[in-house]
Structures are given as C-alpha cells and as structure tokens.
C-alpha cells in the first residue's frame, strides 16, 4: 500500500474510526454514552475533513470542517444533553436484544456497502476514494440503528449519525458539496434538531415516556 499517500492513509484511518464509532453506537444501550459517541463521530469527521482540506487545498472544506465541528460535535450533542436532562431520561436504557446478531448484520452491511461502492471508488481519482464505501457503511449502520431502537432520542441520534455518514461521503467522494448546499443542509439539520426537541416534550406530555413503542396506534392491520 505504499502507493497510497500519507494523507490518504490518515483519512482512511479517520474513516475507519468513524466506522468503528458507528458500530459502537449500534451496540450502545444507554443514552448519554450514545450522545457522546455521536459527538466523537462528529469530531473525527471534522478532523478528517480538515485533513482533506489541507491535503487538497480546498479552502471551502475548512469552512465545512468548522461547521461540522460546531454543529455535530458541539451544538447538537449539547442540545441533546440538555434535552436528556430536561426530559429526565438520562437513565433510560434500551432493552436491546441480540446485540451480537445486530453486529453480525452490521458486518454484512459493511460488506454490501463496500461492494456497492467499489465500482465508484475505482472511477474516483480523489485521494479519499476508499472512504466512500465506509461512508455508505456508516449510513447503513445508522439506518440499522434507527431500526433497532425503541426510544425516541437514540433514534434521533441514529438519524443524525446518518447525516454524518452523508457528510463523510460528500467529502470523500467529491471534496464537499457547493457551499450554499452545505449551508442549507446544516440549517436543515439544525432546524430539524430543534423541531425534534420540541417534539420530545410534546411526546412526553402525551405519552409519559419517550418510548416509541407507545406510538403504534395508527395502523391498518
């Protein structure tokens, strides 16, 4: 692998860490550590973006990195922390069953993601091309996490983690989207998180818990 430049190796390392964090989130039962993991993921993502920016001299990527750091590593975790405290669900524990199975499925997903991303990576001439598969895998793991969670906040964390994966994809595949789009996405994520915060209170008010298994009344069968 000597052909791979050093910066690319670092980026790959970061990407791998992100993937690892995604797995860690998948298996995390408690809320607060989950949020922390999410914050770490955001941090690594920001760092990775910064490295890409440094390597490729894409200046707008610094902005992206900064934005990511601010939003995903600081602001959103902070909001989530506050929410957890305000809602008093700090000790909520997910009754996750069969974590090993979930992990196995996750590994399967990673394989799928890598294979799907393979033809694209081969076409790519960016130094970060290997990470596209990881980005896709992160998205899918986040997806899997949303499926397996039964509490509202972890589900939202999964949702936000998916955004992380997307962001990783954006930087790895294309050195970032146009700035206006990135700003828009960031705004949407922020507003979405705020709305979700409002939502949590409403849900708590109506259902006395944030367990989304209470919300299975609307059905046809």
């Amino acid at each position, binding site marked *: 692998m000597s052909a791979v430049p050093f910066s690319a190796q670092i980026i790959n390392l970061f990407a791998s860490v992100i993937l690892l964090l995604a797995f860690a989130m998948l298996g995390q039962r408690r809320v607060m550590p989950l949020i922390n993991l999410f914050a770490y993921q955001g941090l690594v993502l920001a760092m990775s973006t910064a490295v890409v920016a440094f390597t490729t001299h894409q200046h707008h990527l610094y902005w992206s990195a900064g934005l990511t750091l601010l939003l995903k590593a600081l602001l959103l975790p902070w909001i989530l922390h506050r929410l957890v405290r305000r809602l008093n669900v700090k000790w909520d524990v997910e009754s996750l069953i069969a974590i090993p199975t979930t992990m196995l499925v996750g590994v399967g997903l990673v394989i799928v993601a890598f294979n*799907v991303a393979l*033809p*694209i990576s081969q*076409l*790519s001439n960016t130094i970060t091309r290997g990470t596209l598969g990881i980005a*896709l895998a992160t*998205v899918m793991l986040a*997806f899997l996490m*949303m499926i397996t969670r039964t509490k*509202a906040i972890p*589900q939202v964390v999964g*949702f936000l983690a*998916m*955004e992380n994966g*997307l962001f990783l*994809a*954006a930087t790895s*595949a*294309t*050195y970032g*989207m*146009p700035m*206006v*789009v990135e700003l*828009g*996405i960031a*705004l*949407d994520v922020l*507003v*979405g998180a705020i*709305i*979700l915060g409002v*939502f949590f209170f*409403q*849900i708590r*008010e*109506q*259902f006395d818990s944030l367990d*989304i298994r209470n*919300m*299975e*009344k*609307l059905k*046809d069968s």
Partner: protein
Amino acid sequence: MDFFILMLGFPLVSGLLLTVFGERAWAPNLNIVASLGTFLASALLTVEIVAYGPRFAFGEMFFIDSLNVFFVSLTAFVGLTTSIFSSPYMKNEQEHGRLSIPRLRLYKSMFQLFMFTMLSALTTNNLGVLWVAMEAATLTTVLLVSLYRTPASLEAAWKYFILCGVGIAQALFGTILLYFAAERVLGETGNALLWTHLVEVKGQLEPTIMALSFIFLLVGYGTKVGLAPLHNWLPDAHAEGPTPVSAVLSGLLLNVALYAILRCKVLADGAIPGGFAGNLMMGFGLFTLVTAAFFLSRQKDIKRMFAYSSIEHMGIVTFAFGMGGAVANFAGLLHMTMHSLTKSAIFFAVGHATQKTGTQLMEDIRGLIKINPVIGWGLMLGTLAILGMPPFGVFASEFMILTHAMKYHPWATPILLTALGVAFAAIFGKVQPMVFGETHAKPLPHAPAITPVFVHLSIVLMIGLYIPPYLTRWFHEAARMLG
C-alpha cells in the same frame, strides 16, 4: 417587475409576517391575499415563460422552464384555494375547541413557509438546493401535521418526520453521487449541481454511478412521493393533520417530490442506456398502485382512505413517467394536475363533512346530501372523478396512460386495470353510503367555503371534455423536456 421574485416573495414575507402577527384578526385575510398574490405572480410568470421561453433568476440559481412553471402555477393555485377553504374551516375548528389561537398562527405562518419551500424546490436550478428545500418542506409540514397535539397526531408527525427524514437522507446520498459523477465531467466549478449544466452533459455522465445515484434518489424522494413500500408515513400524516394540510400534502407535496424524481430521471436517462430509470419507476408505480388498491378496502377513516387513494394515483403517475415518451409524459403531467385538483377538492369536501358530523369514521358519516347537498354532491362527484369516471379529466389522463401502456407494455395493462377496479369497488362502496342516506347532524357555526370544491371540479370536468390548445401546447412542451 419580476414576477418570479414576487412569487417567491409573497409566501416568504407573509410567512414571516404571520409568524409575528398571526394572531391578529386580519391574519386569515393576509393568508388569502398572500396566496392570491402568489397565484397571480405565478400566473403572470407562466404567461411570460410560455411566451418567451425558459429563463434564469438570481444568476443561475433558479431556472424556470415550461415544466416547472406548470408545477408552480398548479401549486400556487391549489395553495390559493386551500387558503380560501381553510379560513372558515379553521374558524370552525377553533369554535369546536380543537385549536387555540397560537396554533392558528403557527398554522398560517407554516402554511406560507411551506408554500415558499415548495415553490423554491420547484424553481431551483441547483439539485442540492432542491434537496434542501425538500427537507425544509418536511420540516414545515411536520409541525402542521401535529397541530392538534393529540397522541395520534403526534405519532403521525413523528413517523412522518423520521421516515421522510431518513428517506430524504438517502436522496442526499444520491445527490452526492450525482455531484460526484458530474464533477468528473464539469470539473470542480460549482456548476456540477446545476441542472441546466447537467442536462447538457447528461450523455457523458458515468452510467454506473448514475445508476446508484438514481436508486438512492428514487428511494429517497420516492418516500416523499409515497411509493410503496416507502409510503407508510403518508396515510397517518394525512389522516391526523388538519384537513387543509392533508389537501396540500396530497395535492402538492407529493407532486413536488415526484418532480424532483423527474428531474433526476432526465439525467439518469441521458446517462444510462436501456431505460433503467424508467423500468425502476414502472416497477415502483405498479407495485404502489396494486398495494394501495388493496389497502383501500379495509379503511375506516375517511381521510386515511383518500390518502391511500393519493398513493394509488402517485403509483399511476410514476408508472406513466416510467414509460416515458411524449404521450405518457403528457398523460403523467395531466394526471398529476387532475389528481391535485380533484384530491384537494375531495379533501375540502371531506373536511366540511367531518366537521359537520364530528367524526372521521366513515361508518358514522351518513346522509351528507341531506346535511348539505353541496358538500354531498361535491364529495360524490369528486370521488367519481378520482375514480376515473368520465367525463372527468382523471379519466382523460388514465385513458392516455392505459392506451399507451397497451401499446408498449401490454403485460402491465391487466394489472393496472385490476387495481383500478379494486380501488373503485373499495372507495365507491364506502363513499356512497356516506353521501346518501339519512342523518341527524347539526349545522356549522361558520358557513363552509364551497367555491374551491366546485372550482376544482369544474376545471377537472372541463379538462375531461376539452383541453384548451394553449394548455395542450404548454403540456406538450413540458412533456418534451422530460424526454
């Protein structure tokens, strides 16, 4: 005077104004006036575009051609009639104690902002901004769906938010891949997400990437369109939100999401040989249609039932665009128009009906024609129209879709027709006893706004019998853009 700026400005400014002043007595009127302004601006914009051809706005940020100006005018029109309808409707809701004044303020401002997001989604030239606007549309409507703050409406809103959020995230992944593919051709100029540039180089885009990208985009935006099996949020959100919201969700939001898919399909078609995108869409369309048809027969809630009907029609439209070609695209556009008009008219009628009877359960709604013949007939005719009975316009478009399918995809026609038949049996069997029969319901404090229902239905009826040449030319132009 730039009509485009007016068109986007009216909803944005009024939305912000209503956030502040939404509790004033004149707020409902502002809502209507703003919608009227939007509609007039869009109408004038349409005239301009049809007369002088496509144009840009704000540099290359926005791009208006016959295709999206068609959606714009439709959106603005339904937005106008919905705002007219919602004025007495919301007052009645308030009298019934279901909504407080701050909630009404939220409703009005969010309604206008929702219009803004949709209009920007339609007119933007940047596929990334399109995504942002779509996500923003979700965000604005999520609060509208949970407006009643009942457990059911919260549940619906939660599902709406999560499912659509996840869906749209996938669309973002698709957009990234698209950008990636485009960048290889257009370079890192920032133009790589501009549709006008993309469409020029669509033949050079890498097919493998475009295929992956289109899958993500289809699944992503398809969630918002309500394609089965990604549709699960749709009936809940329609049934539990206030009726004007159901009307715009069904009549407009689904269209806009489909529009996004269409724009991407044009690119995918250009890049991938062999009708890959079309086949996927046809498959989704048929599956959606059949699934929705069978869902219909077990419904108990009237709004839920018509939500499934929307899914069904989105299936038809998706199928039509999947077939591609001038006739099918024309028919698809026509069907979208007819569906928007008819379905929102139905929701208007349903809204009044449920207000009158105080329930959304179809078993408990009886004898609408006795309570208020106009509402009763509105619902009856609207239902017949949506079921594709001639001489209504839905039949015209279904006729074109079916005949086109018979010509190029004969295997699909029995499936289409079976599903339509099942849907007919299910919906009509339930609507008829609601409209007919005896009842003991009381009159409402505020007289309902009936005009929108009949304005919509008259247009639908007219189109069924006579499509003005002006409209035909315009539709043809739009259909041609879709390839």
